[in-house]
């Protein structure tokens, strides 16, 4: 029998800090050395919000940063689980599963990246941004939000901001800025990376494909297990002549946009 590799990791992490930040987001820092060591941008972790009791199912969260034994997440108190999460205190312990998923792929020879983030999509995008900076890859960041109150932009150097109501930056959707950003890029050495609501991803994919630029989208869905066993988190993908389903947690969450079959 070949050597077994136990690389799906469940660990109890100590919460180092929980802070409310820009745009009504919360940033939580966890002591999670095993995850911190291997986590790549675009991967996620999954948290058991309550040790026992409700919610029963874990909550997946993109990785905002990883390093020095710590992992950070960025989240909105959007429902039952994230509400409880936002009220956790320093020193409490939480069970963390991860790192999960494939993460973004940064091709050899990539020269220019356009990062598009909507909502809590800024979290994995921020991680990728820092990684690209480190690798000295030219990077344009486009952040979209409904209005300035919902905007998180910390840590990005001069991001292009768009708000639907025009309360900050450009008025409109991210696609306008993306179209401009793609205009000057050479297909072979550029890529678009996007994370956000599905309608945004679809629009971003269309613009990128129009320009012939590779586009990686980070998808999301209700996840029961996060490790690929339950088949609850699938999205439609092209498969041969037809379509099939792939697991967002284990085959994704990052997919080449051309693979996705967008549901209208």
């Amino acid at each position, binding site marked *: *029998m*070949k050597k*077994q*590799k*136990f*690389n*799906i990791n*469940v660990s109890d992490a100590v919460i180092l800090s929980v802070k409310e930040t820009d745009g009504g987001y919360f940033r939580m820092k966890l002591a999670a050395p095993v995850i911190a060591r291997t986590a790549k941008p675009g991967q996620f972790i999954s948290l*058991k919000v309550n040790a026992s009791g*409700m*919610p*029963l*199912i*874990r909550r997946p969260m993109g990785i905002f940063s990883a390093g020095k034994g710590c992992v950070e997440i960025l989240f909105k108190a959007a429902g039952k689980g994230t509400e409880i999460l936002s009220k956790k205190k320093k020193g409490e312990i939480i*069970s963390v*599963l991860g790192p999960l998923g494939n993460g973004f792929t940064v091709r050899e020879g990539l020269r220019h990246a356009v990062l598009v983030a909507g909502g809590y999509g800024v979290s994995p995008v921020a991680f990728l941004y820092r990684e690209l900076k480190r690798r000295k890859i030219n990077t344009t960041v486009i952040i979209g939000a409904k209005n300035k109150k919902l905007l998180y932009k910390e840590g990005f150097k001069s991001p292009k901001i768009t708000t639907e109501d025009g309360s900050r930056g450009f008025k409109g959707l991210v696609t306008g800025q993306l179209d401009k950003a793609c205009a000057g890029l050479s297909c072979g050495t550029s890529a678009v990376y996007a994370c956000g609501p599905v309608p945004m991803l679809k629009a971003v994919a269309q613009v990128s494909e129009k320009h012939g630029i590779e586009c990686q989208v980070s998808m999301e*869905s*209700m*996840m*029961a*297990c*996060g*490790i*690929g*066993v*339950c*088949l*609850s*988190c*699938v*999205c439609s993908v092209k498969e041969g002549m037809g*379509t*099939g*389903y792939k697991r967002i947690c*284990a085959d994704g969450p990052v997919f080449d946009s051309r693979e996705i079959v967008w549901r209208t």
Partner: protein
Amino acid sequence: MADLSVKIAGIKMKNPVMLASGTCGFGEEFSRVFDLNLLGGIIVKGTTLKPRAGNKPPRAAETPYGMLNSIGLQNPGVEAVINEKLPFLRQFDLPVFVNIAGNSKEEYAELARLLGKAKGVSALEVNISCPNVKHKNSGLFCQDLGDVYAITKAVKRKSRVPVFVKLSAEVSDFKETARAAARAGADGLSLINTLRGMAIDIKTGKPKLANVIGGLSGPAIKPVGIRAVYEAFSAVKIPIIGMGGIASAEDAVEYLFAGASAVAVGTASFYDPLTPFKIIKGLNKYFEDNSFDSVSVIRGRVSL
């Protein structure tokens, strides 16, 4: 270490803890969580003759202390299971139960024939209780006593390995259903499959599952599973694999008391993938603390 080994329908298992069908794929992922050799057995995802894409997403929703799913038996088909999935599992010293689902008794029989020839199949688990696929009468096969008998019989005729029939508790006469399977020659029963349930998102007015109705699993249904195992234990003589809401060694012991010879862990592995491992550890401790020297000391021994 206590002796937790059990033998059900002639199959030797190191301990009574298995992974439930549809909640562990074909073992690959869990082999990256803990050593599969520790397990009593694994019951792989529902396998059909042809590959199945499964239902539209969303396919899962959280409910009070449980969850709904409507996966719809997504699987690569029996051929791929035999050629691509079973070889992986053969690396382990682990009884493999293959869960099968068909649209007719002929399909079930054909699945039994094909898997009977395959290497590394310890038993079949015949799923006639999947709430997520449409049958002739849009109900579950196990809700028709005639179907229970006919499908079990057809599978038994073709199978070279022991046959476990998987039932739902959602039938008018549960004991009669269990007896129908036993009469048709089932070597064991798997109890219970999910209960049919539904959830609606009140913000949008839409069902939370694209397939509208799905199967309810998790701790919420444990009392129904315990009851079904208890009733079946009194109705038939064949061994029972108990499942439904098992999340701890205590839950496993409760099922053993009710009459299960082995147990399978499903939903609890989703929120803690180490659950099966922890249950084995917990059982060891329980049997040692109580100086029980075998599982049969408590199996079916609920005292009235």
